[in-house]
């Protein structure tokens, strides 16, 4: 699974890439605009770690934009920041983030939260594929019922004709 790291701080960018690259295909961006462009591309990562304070566009602004766009409405977004009071956390989550990690973070906590994101996305993918299968089955059932009804309508007049004395 791909994950985007949007971080303008070179130290944290390197650290996050090192921590996540054993389990994920890491894609890097150095600012919010670049992150947005990457996430709107075809075959884009469907999970992103977004630093709150970045040049051009902040993490929460980016969350709002991505949630409003059909292509990225379901992208799993984690905000990363040193802001740790509850008002900031609420503001970040209200902007559309799925989770929130404060710096400095504990390495294993970061990995655990990212794995939760992966699990949510995998469950969503399973639900989507089951929904598609159900819709396909419902479509086939409808076609079958229509076909039976058409055959019955053709056959009934014929039977009525043969039944005449």
């Amino acid at each position: 699974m791909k994950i985007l790291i949007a971080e303008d701080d070179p130290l944290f960018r390197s650290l996050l890439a090192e921590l996540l690259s054993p389990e994920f295909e890491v894609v890097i961006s150095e600012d919010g605009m670049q992150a947005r462009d990457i996430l709107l591309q075809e075959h884009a990562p469907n999970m992103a770690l977004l630093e709150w304070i970045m040049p051009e566009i902040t993490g929460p602004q980016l969350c709002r934009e991505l949630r409003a766009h059909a292509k990225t409405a379901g992208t799993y977004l984690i905000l990363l920041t040193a802001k740790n009071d509850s008002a900031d956390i609420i503001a970040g989550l209200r902007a559309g983030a799925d989770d929130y990690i404060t710096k400095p973070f504990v390495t294993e906590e970061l990995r655990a939260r990212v794995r939760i994101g992966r699990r949510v996305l995998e469950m969503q993918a399973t639900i989507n594929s089951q929904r598609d299968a159900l819709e396909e089955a419902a479509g086939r059932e409808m076609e079958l019922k229509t076909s039976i009804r058409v055959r019955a309508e053709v056959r009934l007049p014929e039977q009525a004709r043969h039944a005449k004395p």
Partner: protein
Amino acid sequence: MLDRLMHVFVESKSKLMAEIERSLADKKPELVEHAAHILKEQLAYMGAHQLSETARRLETVGRKGDYSRAVHFAELLQAQIAEMDPLFSESSQGLL
């Protein structure tokens, strides 16, 4: 990995301190905010909490455009970093 991260940090902090000095030389204290913010987070992650606190103060006074206090905290941060530099360069213990 620790060596690579320490190398990134040492290189990054020099650039950020140069950015702060340049902003203050141009008498534009508001421009130190971003560099001070990044330094604050990096130093906290390295466990240098006193230095991180100085960077936080620099970030705050920079945001307010307070030139004289920005100069004060920039000089203090520079001195604190200079004191810690041998440790940063020699050791990567306790990073994670």
